[in-house]
């Protein structure tokens, strides 16, 4: 089993992923948003179809104006607005989540760390609980808080923490300070009190 990466290698790796994705796809990199769209696929599929129809109508309008030789419309006619960037498709978002699983599996296997197990490791057993039933309850409640909280906050550690802070967005700086701060307080309570 190899050691975990040193901090500088991790920093370069996380930065490269975020920057490359932002420049290639021209959008923020966020995992909770992908979860949200995949889990509400019916609503999102209807939205995708509506956007596609709107785009067809917009192009038809642009073509009609160009065919009339009107050039840029003047007077009471407003220019046809450019549509906002379309969000990544549902398939792309689902592919992101599956790819994360594959990437994690490859890293664990290559480092010799892959181990099928029914617990969360010695650290979880020491710091939180070693009781299997309590572990299941804690993981489920923790998951609900993560899912609810990240969507209420509009992003998670990748969207707000990496991409948003990297762009110095005030909303992301506030969100990251709050979730890191809260996690620090709760982790100290788990370590020292519980």
């Amino acid at each position, binding site marked *: 089993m190899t050691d975990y990466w040193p901090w500088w290698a991790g920093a370069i790796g996380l930065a490269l992923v975020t920057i490359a994705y932002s420049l290639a796809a021209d959008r923020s990199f966020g995992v909770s948003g*992908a979860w949200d769209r995949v889990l509400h696929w019916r609503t999102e599929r209807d939205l995708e179809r509506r956007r596609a129809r709107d785009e067809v109508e917009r192009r038809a309008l642009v073509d009609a104006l160009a065919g009339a030789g009107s050039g840029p419309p003047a007077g009471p006619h407003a220019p046809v607005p450019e549509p906002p960037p379309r969000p990544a498709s549902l398939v792309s978002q689902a592919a992101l989540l599956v790819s994360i699983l594959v990437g994690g599996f490859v890293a664990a296997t290559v480092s010799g760390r892959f181990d099928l197990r029914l617990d969360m490791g010695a650290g979880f057993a020491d710091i939180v609980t070693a009781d299997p039933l309590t572990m299941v309850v804690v993981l489920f409640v923790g*998951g609900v808080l993560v899912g609810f909280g990240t969507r209420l906050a509009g992003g998670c550690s990748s969207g707000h923490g990496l991409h948003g802070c990297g762009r110095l967005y005030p909303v992301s700086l506030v969100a990251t300070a709050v979730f890191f701060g809260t996690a620090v307080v709760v982790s100290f309570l788990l370590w020292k009190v519980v």
Partner: protein
Amino acid sequence: MRTQGGILFANIGAGLALGFVVTSIGFGDFAELNRMFTFQDLRMFLAFAGAVAIIVAVFAIAGVRRTPTRIHAGVVPGAALFGVGWAISGGCPAIPIIQVGSGYLPALVSIAGIVVGIRLCRRVTTRLRIDTGSCGV
């Protein structure tokens, strides 16, 4: 690359890379995570902060445009709930996925919780008309 096919390709590449990097740093290891949050070991904290510093510098040098954002009503309570959940379960929305990829089968329970939490959030915020904003995803 901004076509839907290009974005699909970018998502697959980014997902593979993120899963590999996050697992190799140790974010899927609860003990490492607790040591980061209690400042016993700053390695993972420095990896995160260092990444942010690199991203700030690269985008500033490249002169990439910024999207206007605003601090909406859900930011502080949502982030606080997320922080509690992350500390007790060891997972943010990506980490239970890589934990399963590393063989930690109970992380499937965290994923089930995330599914319930996300669906619950949309239902509650739609019903109460709470603004959840977006980090631009």
